[in-house]
């Protein structure tokens, strides 16, 4: 089973982060949500591997809405 890589993998982390925030510049919360959704879908398709995607979803859910147990769904 392929494993989600959570070790550093971005060559220029600050560049990436700046670009990510810049991509959202001038958008309303609703528009940003749409952009994020498109981004997730594009990246998910690029990754393709269902195990990696499932691990990413589980990690992303950790610590969010703890009262619900933070379970991956």
């Amino acid at each position: 089973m392929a494993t989600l890589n959570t070790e550093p993998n971005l060559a220029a982390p600050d560049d990436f982060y700046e670009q990510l925030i810049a991509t959202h510049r001038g958008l309303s919360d609703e528009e940003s949500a749409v952009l994020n959704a498109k981004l997730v879908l594009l990246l998910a398709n690029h990754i393709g591997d269902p195990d990696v995607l499932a691990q990413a979803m589980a990690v992303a859910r950790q610590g969010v809405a703890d009262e619900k147990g933070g379970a991956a769904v």
Partner: protein
Amino acid sequence: MKTYVNPVYSYTRPAELDRSGARRPVLIVGAGPVGLAAAIDLGQRGVPVLVVDDDHTVSVGSRAICYAKRALEILDRLGCGQQVVDKGIGWNVGKVFFRDELVYRFDLLPEPGHRRPAFVNLQQYWFEQYLVERAQQIPGVELRWDSRVVGVAPREDNVDVTVATVDGDYTICCDWLIAADGSRSAVRKMLGVEWEGQVFRDRFLIADIHMTSDFPTERWFWFDPPFHPNQSTLLHRQADDVWRIDFQLGWNADPEEEKKPERIMPRLRAMLGESAKFDIEWASVYTFACRRMQRFRHGRVIFAGDAAHVVSPFGARGANSGIQDVDNLVWKLDLVLKGLAPDALLDSYDFERTHAADENILNSTRATDFITPKSNASRTFRDAVLALAKHHPFARKLVNSGRLSVPAVLFDSPLNTPDRDPDFASGPGAMVPGAPAADAPIEGPDGDWLLDSLGGDFVLLDFGTTVPMREVAALAAGANRCRVVHVGPASQGGITLEDVRGLAAARYDARPGTVYLVRPDQHICARWRAFDPKAVRAAIARATCNA
């Protein structure tokens, strides 16, 4: 309605009101598509069957309109496929629109060499009328109208059924009861059996309109169209220039108000334009649920169709799965009634068709979640998928306006003999044990299509004619009769088909010597690279619970 007048089937006073009648092998409750198909299938196999229905006509309103390829193939076996296809509107192509743009087009049957299209649209009343007419031709099939079941008393060896008529009640004893009495099944309630599932908080308006139009014969689905903002709309063409339009209304819509013509007309005008000429044929507002009974067999009472399981309409998985229930059940019931199989064979109906129901419910629930998002996040992702789909092929695979009915592959059925020859194709669409047999154009004594030559018996499909004549005779003489159908050089035993375009061999991944054992419901149950009489007999025994 302008285009259809519901027939009236007359009630006749049953003899049982005056003297107790003979025990019946099979009683069917419900003369809808499922009950009628079961009656025809049993009747064709020589089993006398009585059908009781609480009404005296066919469906009021068009209701189930999309009949899938596999259901049409089953109807071919039941002798009324051609009528449905001739009257109905065949289609293979669907289009999905987001707002005012086409984002996705699919073809459900992209390859040639199939007798039946992916779908035929036909109003349920026509469909039922053809089934009634077919049932009436079969000796031993008796239909009783205006006869409502008011009591069911299941016992170890039989079921007592009490039927109410205008002239009073009577009780009939039957060996087996098939409950095909729909989603509000009275039999299910009388047995006190609960069913579980999910009810969707959304309402839909169905409007059937009569209109002459040159719209293409395709399934069109809109997400958030300009004429019906924030909701979905579905358009289907039916027979007689009748068009089905399905408007999503949302949970807060008032079903009584929305049914009124003065509410419906502006919606239709917005969609079709001010100049379109049309009349409303029939309209209905509905909600839906996905649920099934935990078990479809309760001793001698067997549930089929909507009585056993219901789905949302997106995907046309209701009536189509009910017809497949019948296809699966009837040959088994016939063998049990003839003493050729133990009644444990009927547990395989339960096993196979509850799996199929789960598959249908899964697909239907996923489509519903896409069409009716339940949270802001879900809606955002849905709209993101639709926005991406126009330019990016990957996103088109995520668009879900209903995954349209395909027959279940009975992968884990205990009736299958697992492959022992390792080199058979096993990917999607492969003829693995459990798969529905693929059709192919051939030339043979029973017509131009492979499935017509399979019929409704066990068949050994013999590619290259390698099964010796004495074995052909021995298989035909066995308790569970198996006909040998050769594909290739003619033989004196069994019938021979010519694989005129090579598609039979291609679809079955066949070489000279390859043999397939096909069940009476035209599902593969075993295959080998070389004929082995012992293995074939063992596989037939396994497929009939005689092992």
